[in-house]
C-alpha cells in the first residue's frame, strides 16, 4: 500500500505534466499514468513550488527533507508568512525527486539558512501575482487592496473580497522565475521585513508529531507493494575479504527462496518472507579469502599509527605572524596532544529501502536525506536514464549524514532490476554499526605561548584526520555495493580542519593533514559526513587547549576567552566576533558563572567531585557557547553531566520551541560522543557491532536540567533583513570540550582522549591520586 501523502505526490506529477512544467520533454500520449518517465520539475516556474487549491488551501513543494528537526513546519511558517495564508491552510511535500525541485535534500544545516530563501521568494511572488489578478478583477490599483489569510479585499469597501481559490484555485500560475541556480530563485516580489512576519518566531507545534505518536504515520520502512520480496545482505566477515564461493544447499531447508544474488564481493539472499531472509543470511555458508595484509591497525594502536603515518594530503594551513618565533620568546609554553577515535553514525534504524522496477522504471522508497543525489547515483549505477528513476522520500531515522551516502537504496534498486520484482532491503544491526560511514578519527598536537602577563601570544595546531577516501555522498562508484562489486576510481582525498574561532592571537600556525588506513576500498572504516564532519573533533582539541592555557595563565576560562575576543574591534560581515562575545556572556550569565581559575577541585561530597566547564564554537554563521556541570565519581570514574547551559545565536529564529528541542538533542548526541562512542576493531574487522559494543547515551545519562538561551548578537538586532541561520550542527561542536573542561575543574585531571568512559576516567584519576 502506498500512503496517502505519497498518492498526493503521484497526482502532483500529473499536474506538473499537464502544466507543461517538467523540464524535459516527453510523450503526451503517456500523460495520465504515474509510470514514468520522471523528468525534473523546473525551479524556474512558480507552479513547481506552490499550488493553490479551489478551497484556498495551498500545497508547498520543496526540495528538502526533514531529518527530525521540524524543518518542514518551519518551511510552512516562512512560506505562509510570505504568501499571507493561514498556516493551517497549508501542507508541504518534501524530497521526492519527480515532484519537487532539487534543493539537494538535507545537509550542512543549511535548510533554513540557504534553502529557506527561495521558498520565501517563491511564496512572495505568488502573493504578488494574486494581488495583480485581484487588481484586474476589481479594476483597482494594488495599493488599494489588502490581503490577509488568503483573502484579498478592497480597502475602501472591505465587503468586496476575493479568495486565492477564486482567483487561481486548481489552475496554474504560469509565472516564470529567474535565478542562476535553485538557491537564487526569485520572482519580481521582495520578501517581507522581519517585523511583518507573523508565523516566523512562533512556536507552532510540528505537524508531523501526532502521526508519529499514534502510530499512523507510514515511514519508508512501512511501504508494501504487491509481489514484493525481502533481501538481506551477507557482509564480508573480514575487511577486504574476497568471496570465493557460497553453498546454496546450506539454506535449502528454508522456504521461499527467491534467489541468492552475488556479484564480486556483494552477496545477498532474497526470500518471499522477511524472517526467512534473516535466517538464511545467518545460515548461508560462504567461503571468503582474507586479504594478504592487515586492512588497518587495531583500534588500540590507531593513534600511534596515525601519528606515524605519512600524510596523503595537507588539507589546510593558516599562518598568521610567526608562531615559532613567538613561542621561542614566550614566558610560558603549554603543549598537549588530543585524540578522538572513529565514531559511528549508528542510525537508530539500520539502512533500508524498497525498490519497484514496474513499467521498466525504477522507483525507490527511501528515507535518504539527499534523495535527489540518490536518484542520480542509482541511475548511473544501474545504467538507466535519469528520467526513468525516481526516489520517493519518506520519513526515517535521524540522518546525521548517514543517508547522504545511503547504501540500501542502491542495493534494493540493483536487486529489483535483477529480479524484476519489488525488493525491500533491510540491513541488520551488526551490519549498520560495523559498516556504516564513520566520523573520521583525529589526532592533534597543540602548542601555545603566554607572555609574562598571561596573554596568549602564539598558537600552533597540527592535526591528522583519518579521512582519506571520504565517501560522504550517493555516488554510483563509491557506495558500498559498488565497491564490493569491484568499482574503483581515484580515491577522494578527504579533508581535515583547523580550529574555527574568533580569538585574536597575534601569531598562529595551524595545519591539518589527512592520513589513510592501509585499506581504502571495501572497508568498514570508510568515512562520511557525521553531523558537522570535523567540528566536534577539532573543537574538542582547541577548546580543551584554550582551557589549558587559561589554567596556565591562572585566568578564569570565561574571562580568558573574552579577552581573546575583545582584543580587536575587527569583525566579519556576519559579526561572528561580537556574536561570539554575546553568546559566551549569555551562557555565563544563565549559568551564574563565578569567575575563578579552573582545576580547583572543591571538597568532595562523598565520592562525588563537581565541576563546570565552558567551550564555544562557530560553524558557518551560527555561534554557540555551552557550559557543562559534571559530577565525577572518584571511586567508579563515572561522569554524569548534571546540567547543561547553551547560548545560541542563529540569527532570526523561525520556531523557538522546535529549535530548542533540536539544540537539546544535538547537545545530548554530542554528550553521547563525549562519554560513550568509539568504533573498535582488531586487525581484521570492526568489533563494535551493536548497542553494547558501540554504546549510546541512555535515559540514565540525561542531565537534570538543560537551559537554552537564544541570543541575537547582531549589532543591529532589529534590522528588517535579519538573516536566518542554521540550527543543527554548530551545537555539536563545543560540547565534548565543555565536558572535558568540567572534568578538569572537578578533579584537576585533564582528559585528552575521547570518549570519557568510566574505566578511562578512573584510570586517570588513580594515576593522579585523586
Amino acid at each position, binding site marked *: 500500500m502506498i500512503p496517502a501523502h505519497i498518492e498526493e505526490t503521484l497526482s502532483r506529477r500529473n499536474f506538473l505534466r499537464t502544466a507543461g512544467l517538467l523540464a524535459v520533454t516527453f510523450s503526451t500520449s503517456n500523460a495520465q499514468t504515474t509510470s514514468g518517465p520522471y523528468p525534473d520539475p523546473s525551479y524556474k516556474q512558480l507552479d513547481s513550488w506552490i499550488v493553490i487549491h479551489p478551497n484556498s488551501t495551498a500545497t508547498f513543494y520543496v526540495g528538502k527533507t526533514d*531529518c*527530525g*528537526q521540524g524543518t518542514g513546519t518551519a518551511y510552512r511558517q516562512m512560506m505562509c508568512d510570505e504568501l499571507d495564508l493561514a498556516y493551517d491552510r497549508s501542507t508541504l511535500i518534501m524530497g521526492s525527486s519527480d515532484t519537487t525541485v532539487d534543493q539537494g535534500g538535507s545537509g550542512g544545516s543549511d535548510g533554513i539558512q540557504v534553502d529557506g530563501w527561495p521558498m520565501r521568494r517563491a511564496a512572495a511572488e505568488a502573493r504578488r501575482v494574486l494581488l495583480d489578478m485581484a487588481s484586474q478583477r476589481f479594476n483597482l490599483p494594488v495599493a488599494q487592496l489588502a490581503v490577509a489569510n488568503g483573502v484579498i479585499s478592497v480597502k475602501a469597501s472591505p465587503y468586496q473580497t476575493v479568495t486565492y481559490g477564486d482567483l487561481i484555485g486548481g489552475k496554474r500560475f504560469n509565472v516564470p522565475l529567474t535565478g542562476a541556480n535553485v538557491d537564487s530563485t526569485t520572482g519580481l516580489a521582495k520578501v517581507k521585513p522581519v517585523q511583518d512576519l507573523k508565523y516566523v518566531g512562533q512556536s507552532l*507545534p*510540528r505537524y*508531523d*508529531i*501526532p502521526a*508519529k*505518536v*499514534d*502510530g*499512523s*504515520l*507510514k*515511514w519508508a*520502512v*512501512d511501504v*508494501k507493494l504487491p509481489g514484493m520480496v525481502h533481501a538481506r545482505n551477507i557482509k564480508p566477515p573480514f575487511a577486504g575479504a574476497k568471496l570465493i564461493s557460497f553453498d546454496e544447499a546450506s539454506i535449502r531447508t528454508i522456504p521461499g527462496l527467491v534467489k541468492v544474488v552475488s556479484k564480486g564481493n556483494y552477496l545477498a539472499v532474497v526470500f518471499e*518472507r*522477511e*524472517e526467512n531472509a*534473516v535466517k538464511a543470511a545467518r545460515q548461508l555458508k560462504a567461503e571468503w579469502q582474507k586479504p594478504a595484509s592487515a586492512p588497518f591497525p587495531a583500534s588500540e594502536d590507531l593513534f600511534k599509527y596515525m601519528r606515524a603515518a605519512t600524510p596523503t594530503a595537507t588539507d589546510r594551513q593558516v599562518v598568521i605572524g610567526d608562531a615559532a618565533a613567538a613561542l621561542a620568546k614566550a614566558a610560558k609554553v603549554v603543549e598537549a596532544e588530543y585524540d578522538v577515535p572513529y565514531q559511528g553514525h*549508528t*542510525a*537508530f*534504524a*539500520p539502512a533500508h529501502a524498497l525498490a519497484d522496477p514496474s513499467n521498466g522504471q525504477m522507483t525507490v522508497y527511501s528515507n535518504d536525506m539527499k534523495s535527489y543525489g540518490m536518484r542520480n547515483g542509482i541511475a548511473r549505477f544501474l545504467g538507466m536514464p535519469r528520467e526513468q528513476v525516481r526516489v520517493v522520500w519518506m*520519513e*526515517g*531515522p*535521524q540522518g*546525521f549524514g548517514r543517508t547522504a551516502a545511503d547504501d540500501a537504496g542502491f542495493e534494493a534498486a540493483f536487486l529489483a532490476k535483477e529480479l524484476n520484482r519489488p525488493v525491500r532491503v*533491510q540491513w*541488520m*544491526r551488526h551490519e549498520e554499526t560495523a559498516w556504516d560511514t564513520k566520523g573520521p578519527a583525529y589526532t592533534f598536537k597543540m602548542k601555545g605561548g603566554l607572555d609574562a602577563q598571561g596573554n596568549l601570544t602564539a598558537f600552533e595546531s597540527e592535526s591528522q584526520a583519518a579521512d582519506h577516501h571520504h565517501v560522504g555522498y550517493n555516488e554510483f562508484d563509491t557506495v558500498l555495493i559498488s565497491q564490493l562489486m569491484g568499482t574503483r576510481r581515484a580515491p577522494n582525498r578527504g579533508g581535515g580542519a583547523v580550529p574555527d574561532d574568533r580569538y585574536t592571537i597575534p601569531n598562529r600556525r595551524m595545519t591539518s593533514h589527512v592520513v589513510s588506513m592501509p585499506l581504502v576500498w571495501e572497508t568498514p572504516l570508510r568515512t562520511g559526513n557525521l553531523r558537522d564532519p570535523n567540528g566536534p573533533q577539532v573543537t574538542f582539541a582547541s577548546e580543551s587547549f584554550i582551557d589549558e592555557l587559561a589554567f596556565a595563565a591562572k585566568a578564569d576560562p570565561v574571562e580568558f576567552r573574552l579577552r581573546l575576543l575583545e582584543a580587536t574591534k575587527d569583525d566579519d560581515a556576519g559579526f561572528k566576533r561580537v556574536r561570539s562575545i554575546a553568546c559566551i556572556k549569555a551562557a555565563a550569565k544563565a549559568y551564574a558563572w563565578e569567575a575563578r581559575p579552573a582545576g580547583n577541585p572543591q571538597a568532595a561530597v562523598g565520592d562525588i567531585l563537581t565541576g563546570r566547564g565552558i567551550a564555544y564554537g562557530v560553524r558557518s554563521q551560527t555561534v554557540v557557547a555551552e557550559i557543562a556541570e559534571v559530577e565525577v565519581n572518584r571511586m567508579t570514574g563515572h561522569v554524569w553531566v548534571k546540567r547543561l547551559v547553551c547560548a545560541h545565536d542563529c540569527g532570526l529564529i523561525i520556531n523557538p*520551541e*522546535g529549535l530548542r*528541542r*533540536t539544540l*537539546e*538533542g*544535538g*547537545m*545530548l*548526541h554530542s*554528550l553521547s560522543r563525549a562519554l560513550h562512542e568509539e568504533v573498535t576493531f582488531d586487525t581484521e574487522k570492526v568489533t563494535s557491532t*551493536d*548497542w*553494547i559494543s558501540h554504546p*549510546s*547515551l*541512555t*535515559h*540514565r*545519562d*540525561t*542531565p*537534570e536540567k*538543560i537551559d537554552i538561551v537564544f541570543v541575537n548578537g547582531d549589532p543591529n538586532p532589529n534590522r528588517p533583513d535579519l538573516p536566518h541561520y542554521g540550527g543543527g550542527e554548530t551545537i555539536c561542536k563545543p560540547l565534548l570540550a565543555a565536558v572535558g573542561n568540567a572534568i578538569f575543574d572537578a578533579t584537576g585531571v585533564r582528559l585528552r582522549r575521547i570518549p570519557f568512559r568510566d574505566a578511562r576516567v578512573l584510570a586517570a584519576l588513580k594515576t593522579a591520586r585523586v
Partner: protein
Amino acid sequence: MTLKVNGKNHTVDADPTTPLLYILRNDLNLQGPRFGCGLGQCGACTVIINGVATRSCILPAGSVKAEITTLEGLAKNGKLHPLQEAWIAEQVPACGFCQNGQIMTAKALLDKNPHPTDQQIRDGMANTLCRCMTYYRVQAAIKKVASGKGGAA
C-alpha cells in the same frame, strides 16, 4: 497460530519461531512496532504483554499466549492515551523512529508505578534508546502524566 492483538483475534500461517515483530508488521499490518536491532537492545519493537513492555524482535510469535497491545491499540474510542497526549503537548519526537519504544515502555512503567521518582523513570526507561536524544523531553512528558497534570496542552 492465533494471536490476540489490540482486542482482535488473528490467525496467521507462519513458522511459530518467527519473531513476533515480523508477524505484527508484515502479516497484521501493525507497523507501530519497528525494527531497530533485532537483538532486544534498543526497544523500537516494544509491545505490551501481560502488562510488561516486551521486545517483540526476539520473542517467538508462537510462544505468546496472552493478549498483545501495540502502539495502535493505546487510543480508546478515538481518544489518545494520556501519554500520547503528553507526547504531543511536550513535542517529544525528533525523527520519531524510536518513539514507539519510548511510549510503550513508559506506559508499562506508569501502569505499574503511577507516580515514579525521577530516578525510577531513568532506571525504568534506561534501556530504551533514542539516537536523536529526546530523553529530556521523554522524561518531561512522563512526569507530566505521573504528576496528574495530564497531557492536554
